[in-house]
């Protein structure tokens, strides 16, 4: 019926989240950081859908939450990339360390 244990899904999701976190912490380019955030959101979605399937398969709330997360990820990507493009126009660079207008 359920050939894969739930903890496998959770382990994969934790691994994906950690990889995304490492990317968000260690990348220089703003677009690369946005990509890492997308990885983190995907890890969250795997968790939601796995819990839905294994613990509450008759309810729909797990899938509903996953759909909301996907929608918010789309909005976040659109606005985030627009901000990156605006900053790139100003600074001719997408390296986040160089955006220090508000520093000091």
């Amino acid at each position, binding site marked *: 019926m359920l050939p894969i244990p739930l903890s496998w899904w959770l382990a994969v999701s934790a691994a994906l989240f950690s990889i995304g976190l*490492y990317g968000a912490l260690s990348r220089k380019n703003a677009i690369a950081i946005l990509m890492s955030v997308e990885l983190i959101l995907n890890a969250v979605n795997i968790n939601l859908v796995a819990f*839905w399937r294994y613990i509450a398969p008759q309810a729909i709330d797990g899938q509903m939450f996953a759909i909301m997360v996907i929608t918010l*990820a789309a909005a976040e990507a659109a606005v985030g990339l627009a901000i990156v493009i605006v900053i790139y126009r100003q600074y001719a660079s997408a390296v986040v360390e160089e955006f220090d207008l508000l520093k000091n």
Partner: protein
Amino acid sequence: MIIQAIFIVMTLCTLGGAVGVVSSRNLFHSALYLILSFFGVAGYYVLLSAGFLAVIQLMVYIGAIAILILFAIMFSRESAMNSAKESQANRQRWLGLPVAMGLFISLIAVIIPVNWPIQQTAPTTDMVRDLGVAFLTSYLIPFEVVSVLLSVALIGAVMLAREENPPVKETK
């Protein structure tokens, strides 16, 4: 048996793609690895019998978000592609690696001993219909809020990215 094999292949796609995203020096390759990772996650949804979400994943993530990211990379091409020789990691890299590893290990340590109350029942077969009904009844307000948010994001992205003035400051 074959389900486990598919799961392992999808895991290789997802985690391998994710490692490619965070480690590739060429940003364009990073975006292509990201598409591979999204494909793996769509396969997970099929294995979890959430077919509608798998289709959404393919359409929204691969069809829209990944293409949007590729567009943004091409817009900032001088910074993204010509610097492919040098490392794309910042100074915090050796701090970020143990933080991420520690988070992973602690998550695994929390996950493994828990005895989850797993239910062996099958999910409802008519999931798309149930989702549609729920969107118009119990989830009506979140649905409306999300639609407003999408409109705001659309208008905001267009307003932000529109070139109103020529660039005033050129920092090298």
